[in-house]
């Protein structure tokens, strides 16, 4: 009995450490890979990079989840110069799912950008940083 109580207490102590982890192993989804790329073809990112020319016309944020236990949503939040530009809701289906969002590029979009990938409970899963240039 004392052994069970000890395990239980240990579990209570260790549990918060896991829940505060950088965001990749949260509840029932696991973000295995995410990148910013020029295009997405056949569910694969094409030309992942950190610099994108405005002449490319579009930029994509690709995210792959290798473990999805139940249907849920995530968000891709696009920021330009620390100011939110758009928030895109994406649905994940079990058991694994890859999804992406994109933005159309205009002349005024040049500058430093970042995309925050967050889950349905606003937990930050990953931050991707890139620049839009000439």
């Amino acid at each position, binding site marked *: 009995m004392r052994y069970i109580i000890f395990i239980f207490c240990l579990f209570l102590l260790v549990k918060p450490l896991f829940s505060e982890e950088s965001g990749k192993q949260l509840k029932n989804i696991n973000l295995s890979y995410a990148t910013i790329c020029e295009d997405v073809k056949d569910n694969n990112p094409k030309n992942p990079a950190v*610099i994108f020319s405005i002449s490319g016309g579009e930029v994509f944020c690709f995210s792959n989840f290798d473990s999805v236990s139940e249907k849920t949503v995530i968000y891709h939040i696009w920021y330009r110069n620390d100011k939110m530009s758009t928030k895109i809701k994406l649905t994940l289906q079990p058991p694994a799912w890859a999804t992406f969002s994109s933005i159309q590029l205009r002349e005024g979009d040049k500058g430093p950008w*970042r995309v925050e990938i967050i889950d349905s409970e606003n937990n930050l899963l990953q931050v991707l940083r890139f*620049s839009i*240039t000439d």
Partner: protein
Amino acid sequence: MKELLLQYLSGIRWQDLFDIIISSYMLFRFYVLFRNTIVFRILIGLVLLWFFQSIANSLGLIVTSWAVRAITAAAALIIIVVFRNEIRSVLQAKNLKAILWGFTHSIVSTPLEIIIDTVYDMAKRRCGALIVFPGKEDLKEVVQNGIQWNGVVSKEMILSIFWHDNPVHDGAIVIKGDQITEVSVILPLSHRQDLPSVYGTRHRAAVGLAEDSDALIIVVSEERGTVTIAKNAHYMEITKKERLEELLEEHIGVMSNPVEQLKKEKLKFGIAAVLCVIFVTGVWFSFTRGLSTLISMEIPVEYMNLDSGMEIWDTSANAVRLLLSGSDALIQSMRHEQIRLRLDLKKAAVGVNTFTITPEDITLPPGILLKRVTPQIVEVTLDAQVKKELPIQADFSGKLPENLILVSAKLTPEYIQVVGKHRVLENMSTIYTEKIPLDNIQSSGTIIVNPFINSTSIRIAQGGKTRIKVEYTVKER
């Protein structure tokens, strides 16, 4: 009516009573110190002028009120210049105790009998004499060349002064109280044409001084052995000792009984004290309980006791409008700098602090009442310096050659600690580098750049790295 009076009096605070008592005492002391000088009489004249001007003003007499005001203003200046000697002698001669609470009873003990006896004795001997009994006016400006004597009056002394061979016999002596204060004094000569031809220089000098001052002068004729007195530009021969005694008593104010005189003096002080209280109370009521006036003023809000680590970020109001009431006289005399609104930020914290303005926060001149404050609530947003660790992001610019892809950029350090205002850092999640040009990049490499901080309220924390290493990787398309 009774209720109205009670309501009127119930508004009086203890400070007001104190105010009346102090002012009355100051006025009373002024009377005690200057009562025997001409300054006091002039001041009473000035007060009357001021009243007259107020009445003329209230009646709408434009020119009269203007003229009286000009006279009053000029008179105030003239009094200080002309009567500086009297003012100085009163203030210099007395110590602090005498000025603040001492009483000097002016019991005159001029030995009139000795003087009168001597005067008629000299007349009999045909010994000329000129004796001055000053009135309330100062003679310093009128007479000249007096030699200080300060000897107690005696028959022998007077006789010896006017003895022919005495070097100081040619001139007048001045008697104050029981002392001969000055001898050989040169008096101003009268220019009157109607003086009897038998009158010589001595008589002309006596009349001259009588014309210019309120002094009484006794002249003993050397040629005719007569006694003449001059006062207020008049002169008369006195043949009887009793008459001369009467006139001298009247001039000097001597009473036969010193105790009675002391009683009279005390009564005078008592009446003066009561009059002072009545006068000051009247002035006080006219000032503070006069026609009630409303005035609206905008005053700045002053913030005090702000913690040194904090600063005011924003306030909902920098000034407030006060609606004040008081008597017309007080409102008119009120100055803008006498009114202050001070909010104590001692207990304020970082963020928005709400203050309700209370009468305790506002300083007003005495007698002025606060009716309303607009706005009554002031919000003060305070900020403080905080430290925050932020990620650094490379800020590329220019155009990368078409055949290349920049696949990664690793920054060292990845984070930087900055110090700045809480409210600024709250909304900041990234620090960018200065612009990194892409145009010349042909292959992977490293570049050292500085962080770019475009806000004056933020700086890199002490000991923090100011150089950022950017390792970038490029590949062919």
